[in-house]
């Protein structure tokens, strides 16, 4: 079942090279290169922290709550949207080269992680200015969060890539989902502002929220909730096996779809 993934890991150079190409293409002829990612999100977060701080009742560590949530959501959004191009934009490679297909999904994860690393300094910058300390013992939970997020990213890049290659509507659907979910997911607002019933229907079933919590809570000095850990573990396991099953079943057909 994991033959393709094993081969792509043994030929990891392909995924790295494709990701490097994407990065170079994105920032070619710019003076600041990928640091534009840091600057643009930094400006957005600064303005949002000022505006939303005025609009809603600000709590002590609201800014760090907003910053960590937004950084993870940006990553999720990037993975989801770029996954729709996993196979379509590399049609020539899919058609003319005998490479493991999961290499293309891995290249998307490497690309998104690289962008994520450029957002990460914002955590330290905002914590410095708002005098919140983010270094604490609960950061140990990141040892669980990071692999889980990376594994889900790989599975998503593969699964969404396959689905979009076959059904092009998925591209618009994903775009719509990511545009809407930034408002429906507790990033700008806290779930505690909803009553218990609303939390049960709006927050608990939201898988984005649980992945964000895995990363956000340790930086706020808290442990992620057990519910979030269990839900993400189950979802990660499910999507990993399902994506690899799809890869096995439809690997031969992808060349006809792109």
């Amino acid at each position, binding site marked *: 079942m994991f033959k393709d993934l094993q081969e792509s890991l043994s030929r990891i*150079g392909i995924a790295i090279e494709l990701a490097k*190409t994407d990065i*170079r293409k994105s920032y070619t002829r710019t003076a600041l290169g990928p640091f534009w990612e840091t600057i643009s999100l930094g400006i957005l977060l600064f303005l949002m922290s000022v505006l939303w701080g005025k609009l809603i009742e600000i709590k002590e560590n609201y800014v760090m709550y907003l910053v960590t949530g937004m950084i993870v959501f940006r990553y999720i959004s990037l993975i989801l949207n770029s996954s729709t191009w996993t196979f379509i934009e590399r049609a*020539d490679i899919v*058609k*003319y*080269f*005998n*490479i493991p297909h999961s290499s293309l999904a891995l290249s998307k994860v490497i690309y998104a992680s690289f962008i994520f690393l450029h957002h990460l300094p914002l955590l330290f910058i905002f914590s410095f200015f708002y005098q919140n300390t983010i270094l604490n013992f609960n950061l140990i939970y990141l040892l669980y969060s990071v692999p889980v997020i990376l594994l889900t990213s790989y599975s998503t890049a593969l699964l969404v890539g396959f689905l979009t290659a076959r059904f092009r509507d998925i591209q618009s659907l994903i775009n719509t989902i990511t545009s809407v979910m930034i408002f429906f997911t507790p990033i700008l607002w806290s779930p505690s502002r909803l009553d218990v019933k609303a939390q049960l229907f709006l927050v608990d079933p939201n898988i984005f929220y649980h992945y964000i919590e895995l990363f956000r809570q340790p930086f706020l000095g808290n442990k992620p909730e057990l519910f979030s850990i269990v839900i993400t573990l189950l979802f990660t396991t499910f999507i990993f096996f399902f994506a690899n099953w799809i890869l096995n079943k439809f690997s031969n057909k992808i*060349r006809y779809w792109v």
Partner: protein
Amino acid sequence: MSEVLLKNIYLTYPIYGHKLSIKSKIAGVVGGGINTDKKKYHVEALKNLNCKFVNGEKIGLLGHNGAGKSTMLAMLSSIYPPSSGELTINGKVQSLFNPGAGLEPEESGLRNIKRLGLLLNANINELEKNTDEIINVSGLGDYINLPVRSYSDGMKLRLCFSVITSWKSDIFLIDEFLSVGDNAFYKYCKGKLEEIMKSSSIVVLASHNLDFIKSFTSRVLVLKAGQIVFDGITSEGIKFYEEKY
């Protein structure tokens, strides 16, 4: 010992998202047969192929456009698996199909050498050692540092051909590609192909250029609508092809 064995091979591929008019069904004179079911069309690209290529054979594939030459080569390089039948390939396969495929237009020729090497599963250390020679052979000079989008088709071909022929393989598959190169490169390719012919155990070459087929192959397969209609020595194969097409 390299060997390629095809036994009752069929290859059908689906076409998604396109509708076929009755007129085009009646008027189509090239390509394999097209079948339809409720959701999609199927092209019968290869039908009942039976043949064997052994060590030392240089095979030419002839046929009209859409006869199945490129599909057959793609199948031999494991890009398209057969829909049914038995395909046995013993030996390391290398192929050159579409000179532009795999190249990143925004990257320089130099970066694309590594990219192609990775995609073709080359030994990267060996490839890096041979980079100077590849650049030299390609004749691209200072263009090697420019983005590939500034290259002509011929220059892309030079780059790809130089990379692909920089390491040895047991089975070498080449699709019609020399038409875009200039005279000097054509001569170079001929020389390089002669070398490949000597070092590779099996060479399969698809072309419409009969002189090329005559110079390089000893056996010819003529394909028509996905089927082998002739399999024999080159001189007779070319005669058959010229008479029938």
